[in-house]
């Protein structure tokens, strides 16, 4: 019952406001009535006491001569006059000793209780108090009130001068010579208070009822249009459209109705726009050539378009009962959790996945994934494109590129072999021939010494020396050409010695100071790799001479079981980023190609004003794996 009442109060604004106001009015009425009754009762009581004191005072004043002379006849008029006053039941006059000089009373006083009437002792006590304070006293009983007032005389003469003169200094001291007492009927006061109480309560109840009615009318006036408005809002919420709410007033309710109408109009417009937007989206969604499906955050397919269903070999109905796990290959699904986290964190991503077709074959897709919000919930939108064809073309391109790279490698190998052969032939054949020619020329010189004609001998020997020198020069050139074509030291002493020789030769020819830091331990690389590294090294040094403007070059070769690293660092102007990516940088391209042939990679970094660093990293293990794969794939 209590809960129901609270529920009603909580749900019904009208009752809540009504009860609040009613309580407020009740509180105000009760407070005001109580205060009014209290004040009026006090005022009436004060007025009664004031009147009683006044009458007692008048009686005391009028009794002065009578009390002074203890003349009862003189007191008679004064007492009778006071007794005629309304509410006065008894009049008594006493002398200073408390002796009753005059007493008059009305007959009805005999019917009243005499609780206040004092015995001689208490009367004496009252008299003593009045003498001490020289002020009136009021004694309140149940049905009567006694008012005592001292009868004061100026009888203490200042002297005979006071008989003649009226100066203030000659005034005599007041002296109590007796007491006047009147008894008033308290029932008059009680009756007045009761009348007041009844009237006040009646006024209070009337005010309360009027307050209730006004409150009810006001609350109804407020809540009626509000309830209508609530009904309209409900209808609007249910149907989505509602007729304009009539605006009857210009107060807050009218303004609320106006605001509601504006809101309804605005919502209607927005809803139309939203509907159009949704229709456009739906059209786009269903008619898109790309597959689109919407995932819940737990990976279930919420919606899917025709293209997506067609790509996967299912109907849209079938797919709406599937989850991502049903579509993804196991390898792709392994990545779903991590990708979902990123998407839910707000990251939009494009990635390649592999889905299983209904018939079991695997389909590659490129998927654009983004987080969308709908009706306050988060969903993952996946727009996917079948990239089977693209993948095939990529594979073909990759294969072609591999073939090209293999061909290039082969060409390099062949070239190196050719250069080796040419170098050997030049060195062996041409060198041998030239050496033979030089021997022959030596013999010819020896033979020429035997010529007696000195002039002829001298001329011939000189010619022979010239030939010998030409042969030496030619031999030297032949050796150089052979060395350039294929340094024999690379084949004979290995990469480290070849690099060291090449660097010294570079320093000698270019004048650029060089340092070489060989590996701590001996390394053993196959001939092709050594050749590739050597040629890359040669190209790097060529770039230093041609482009860097460096004054020093530092070369490090490191090798371990897994990889070999060659680092060429100069102190030149530093290569620019644009040149790194330029198609015209054929030297760098060749270096990369050579490195890639051995599964390696080249990193070129340049810092303006500091220099350029070329790092070649080649992993024989990786190269071996690639070779093994090539062997496996045939």
């Amino acid at each position, binding site marked *: 019952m209590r809960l129901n009442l609270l529920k009603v109060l909580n749900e019904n604004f009208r009752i809540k406001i009504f009860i609040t106001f009613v309580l407020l009015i009740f509180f105000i009425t009760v407070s005001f009535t109580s205060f009014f009754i209290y004040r009026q009762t006090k005022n009436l009581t004060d007025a009664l006491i004031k009147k009683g004191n006044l009458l007692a005072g008048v009686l005391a004043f009028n009794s002065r001569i009578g009390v002074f002379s203890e003349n009862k006849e003189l007191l008679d008029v004064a007492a009778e006059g006071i007794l005629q006053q309304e509410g006065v039941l008894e009049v008594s006059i006493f002398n200073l000793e408390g002796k009753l000089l005059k007493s008059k009373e009305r007959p009805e006083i005999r019917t009243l209780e005499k609780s206040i009437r004092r015995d001689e002792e208490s009367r004496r006590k009252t008299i003593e108090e009045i003498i001490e304070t020289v002020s009136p006293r009021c004694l309140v009983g149940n049905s009567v009130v006694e008012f005592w007032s001292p009868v004061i005389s*100026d009888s203490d003469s200042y002297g005979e001068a006071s008989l003649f003169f009226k100066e203030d200094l000659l005034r005599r001291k007041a002296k109590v010579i007796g007491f006047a007492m009147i008894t008033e009927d308290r029932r008059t006061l009680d009756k007045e208070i009761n009348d007041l109480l009844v009237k006040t309560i009646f006024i209070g109840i009337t005010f309360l009822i009027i307050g209730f009615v006004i409150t009810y009318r006001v609350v109804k006036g407020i809540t009626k249009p509000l309830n209508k408005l609530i009904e309209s809002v409900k209808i609007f919420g249910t149907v989505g459209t509602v007729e304009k709410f009539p605006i009857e007033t210009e107060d807050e309710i009218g303004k609320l109705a106006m605001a509601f109408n504006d809101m309804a109009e605005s919502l209607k417009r927005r809803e139309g726009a939203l509907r159009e937007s949704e229709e456009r989206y739906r059209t786009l969604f269903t008619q898109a050539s790309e597959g689109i499906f919407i995932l819940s955050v737990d990976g279930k397919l919420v919606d899917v378009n025709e293209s997506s269903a067609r790509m996967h070999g299912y109907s849209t109905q079938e797919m709406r009962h599937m989850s991502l796990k049903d579509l993804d290959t196991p390898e792709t699904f392994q990545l779903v959790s991590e990708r979902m986290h990123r998407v839910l964190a707000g990251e939009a991503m494009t990635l390649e996945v592999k889905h299983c077709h209904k018939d079991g074959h695997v389909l590659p897709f490129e998927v654009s994934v983004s987080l969308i919000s709908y009706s306050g919930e988060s969903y993952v939108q996946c727009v996917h494109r079948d990239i089977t064809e693209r993948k095939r073309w990529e594979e073909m391109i990759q294969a072609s590129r591999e073939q090209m790279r293999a061909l290039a490698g082969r060409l390099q190998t062949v070239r190196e072999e050719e250069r080796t052969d040419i170098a050997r032939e030049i060195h062996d054949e041409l060198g041998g021939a030239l050496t033979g020619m030089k021997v022959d020329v030596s013999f010819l010189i020896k033979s020429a010494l035997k010529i007696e004609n000195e002039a002829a001998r001298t001329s011939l020997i000189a010619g022979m020396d010239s030939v010998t020198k030409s042969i030496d020069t030619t031999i030297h050139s032949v050796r150089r050409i052979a060395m350039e074509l294929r340094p024999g030291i690379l084949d004979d002493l290995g990469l480290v010695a070849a690099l060291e020789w090449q660097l010294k030769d570079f320093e000698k020819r270019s004048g650029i100071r060089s340092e070489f830091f060989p590996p701590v331990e001996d390394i053993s690389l196959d001939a092709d790799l050594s050749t590739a590294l050597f040629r890359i090294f040669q190209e790097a040094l060529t770039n230093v001479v041609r482009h860097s403007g460096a004054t020093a070059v530092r070369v490090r070769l490191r090798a371990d079981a897994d990889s070999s690293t060659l680092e060429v660092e100069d102190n030149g102007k530093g290569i620019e980023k644009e040149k790194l990516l330029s198609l015209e940088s054929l030297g760098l391209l060749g270096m990369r190609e050579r490195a890639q042939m051995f599964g390696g990679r080249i990193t070129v970094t340049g810092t303006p004003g500091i220099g350029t660093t070329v790092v070649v990293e080649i992993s024989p293990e990786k190269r071996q794996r690639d070779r093994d794969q090539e062997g496996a794939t045939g």
Partner: protein
Amino acid sequence: MLRNLFRLLIFLILLTLCQGSAWAGQEIVAVQSIRIQPYEDAVQGFESACGAKIKRLIISELKGTDIVEKINEIRPDMILAVGLDALSRVIRIKDIPVIYLMVLHPQSILSGEKNISGVSMDIPQEKQLRTLLDALPRTKTVGLLYAQEKTGRLAKKAREAAREIGIKLLAKEVHSTRDVPQSIQDMKGKIDVFWMLPDLTVITPETIEFVLLFSLENKIPILAFSEKYVELGALMSVGIDAFDIGIQAGEMAEKILSGRDIMNAQHVDARKAVISINLKVAKTLGIPIDEKIIRKARIIN
């Protein structure tokens, strides 16, 4: 002859100078109980008549001071006692001449002191009755109340004056103030005028109110001794002139200080009477007042 006249003139001038210088060196201490205007008027009157230097001692302002000791310290040539209270204090001094004034019944405290003289506030009863008759010629019977110990002497004088003038005086003795209302009630219908004597037993604030009410209720005019009662409702009063009493006393002092009346006490009544009439009361009581007396009187409205 001319020579003798010249010698006489020189002697008189010297005598005047000697007398003037003697007054100028003499000092009078004026003792008064309180500082009220009638007393001040009396002292001023005294000063106007006597050229001696006057030193004032106001008893109410000298709390706790023994006036006699104070006077003995000063040792004046004369003491002026203003009022009964002052006279009762300086009465112990026997070796300095005392002049009193503004005292109603000096005989009540004096017992034949040789050094005390003065002017009482009494106005001769005959003078009062004659004044009454001037104002109210139809007066046949005058009533008065008195307490023997206070105004018995005045009542006696009144009787004598009434007999002298030929009107009837109904004088009734009261023994206490409580007797006053009843005694005056008893005079109702028997008197034409009520004569109020300066009697502290008869005249109290309560009784005066009663007497005045009695006067109005019974249309019996009151002859009072002070203008104060005329203002309250008495028809007329024959009272003193304080300034003139001061002059009267000053003249007496002058004689004493000049050595002519030293230690020869004189007690005189006030010589000047001031008549006051309340015309409103006269109108209320329906009593016509003669224009001649109105011209001589001080009119209270």
